[in-house]
């Protein structure tokens, strides 16, 4: 049986899609058959970040409406045979998502995949609630600033009360905190909440801290999930996150301001 993971946050622009792309690629790289679904119907982005935007024929809504079957809509990633992308529709709106329809798609995917990653849209409306309703695990993506933390907290409340697991009184969704765009320099200057501050407020298991990095922007622009950029700190941090999700005990990295030597000062790091 596949495990369904929702990548969510409440707030927009915190790195949900970047995370969904990197995380699903990481799981696929580890040999797990993984599908990643874009729930942001009307504002699809995942195909861009995954670099498959020019191969989209059918989308999630076509499948929900029975206009295409799942195999026609799933796009196999060129870099990993284990990874498939189900893009969102750009021409519909989120009303196209029905609970029965989504369940049907997830059930069918569950037959042949190990992990199903759901990339949630921002907000707490239909798209977001659909993305998280069937989840087993949730990665709550949060930036170290107060409004993002509060929105994540709100999302955690919804996860705890309005998901399938909550409604059926099953074991609650496993929730993980992923801090993104973390800048130790700015934390040191007091301009940003620290890991500890955020954990104090959200009291949640920390699955990773992704440092603010140019590599993320470059990766998005070139359609390569940042986890494939093994040189970059962000890529390494995502690899650690995948390892922790799979149960490995890895220390958190990139939390301190790196001590730059003269060489690195001159040539950047």
């Amino acid at each position: 049986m596949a495990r369904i993971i929702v990548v969510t946050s409440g707030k927009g622009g915190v790195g949900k899609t970047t995370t969904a792309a990197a995380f699903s690629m990481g799981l696929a790289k580890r040999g797990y058959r993984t599908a990643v679904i874009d729930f942001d119907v009307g504002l699809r982005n995942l195909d861009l970040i995954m670099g498959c935007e020019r191969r989209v024929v059918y989308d999630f809504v076509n499948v929900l409406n029975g206009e295409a079957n799942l195999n026609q809509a799933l796009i196999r990633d060129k870099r990993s045979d284990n990874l498939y992308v189900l893009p969102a529709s750009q021409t519909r709106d989120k009303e196209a998502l029905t609970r029965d329809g989504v369940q049907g798609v997830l059930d069918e995917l569950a037959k042949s995949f190990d992990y199903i990653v759901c990339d949630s849209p921002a907000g707490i409306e239909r798209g977001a609630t659909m993305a998280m309703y069937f989840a087993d695990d949730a990665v709550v993506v949060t930036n170290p600033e107060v409004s993002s933390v509060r929105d994540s907290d709100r999302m955690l409340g919804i996860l705890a009360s309005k998901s399938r697991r909550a409604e059926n009184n099953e074991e609650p969704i496993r929730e993980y905190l992923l801090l993104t765009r973390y800048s130790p320099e700015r934390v040191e200057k007091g301009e940003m909440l620290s890991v500890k501050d955020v954990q104090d407020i959200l009291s949640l298991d920390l699955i990773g801290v992704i440092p603010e990095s140019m590599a993320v922007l470059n990766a998005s622009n070139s359609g390569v999930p940042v986890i494939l950029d093994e040189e970059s700190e962000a890529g390494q941090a995502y690899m650690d996150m995948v390892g922790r999700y799979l149960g490995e005990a890895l220390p958190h990295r990139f939390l301190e301001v790196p001590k730059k030597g003269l060489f690195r000062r001159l040539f950047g790091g």
Partner: protein
Amino acid sequence: MSVTAPQGQAEQAAFELRATTFTLPTLRLFSADLGELSCFLETKIQQAPEFFRNAPVVVDLSHLPEVALDFPLLVGLLRGLGLLPIGVRGGSEQHRETARLMDLAILSQGSRGPAAAVSAKAAAPAPAAAQHGAAERPAPAAGPAGKLVTRPVRSGQRLYAQGGDLVVLAPVSSGAELMADGNIHVYGPLRGRALAGVKGNGDARIFCQDLRAELISVAGHYRVSENLDPALAGRPVQVRLQDGRLIIEAL
């Protein structure tokens, strides 16, 4: 406990509880448009300003369809016009809950006499003046009626312990709301709102390990975080009502 009339124990006849019938003006709402209502009321009041000055008024919502009504705004509007809104009749459960939180009486629709009057009669022979605050309703039963919460209470969540205490063993985030007819205990940081004794039990208290609440309230007497002493943050405190004033003290 908190309110003890000095001569309460000495004389049996310190007070007498009787059911009395009053004729009260009732404001029956047909629309939730408060702007319109405000205009209409103002003209009405100008016709007989003396009659309306400090006049107690009951708001009747039973003819108002299930629409969103900004109840606190309505009460503010009436008070602003010099009226004294004292109770509510009809309306949705949500309206009644808001009314309760604003210390307004919930009046019945007619045949079913107000529960308050009946229970007050029954309670009348009790000599303890301490019953005073709870006289309108039977004191909430502690123990089994309470609620125990072990997971964090997140922003946007509301928990209500009906008829008892609410015990939370986890953090309460800002934007979350705790309500109880009885006491509230929080054994994690309290950053949200906590309203104890929401049905008017002035003996209810709030206990918490780390008070950073947005708002605390006992029986409708509230204080917002701006008016909380920052020196109390991070220390175990209790919040109680004494002579109509909220007392916040370190434990």
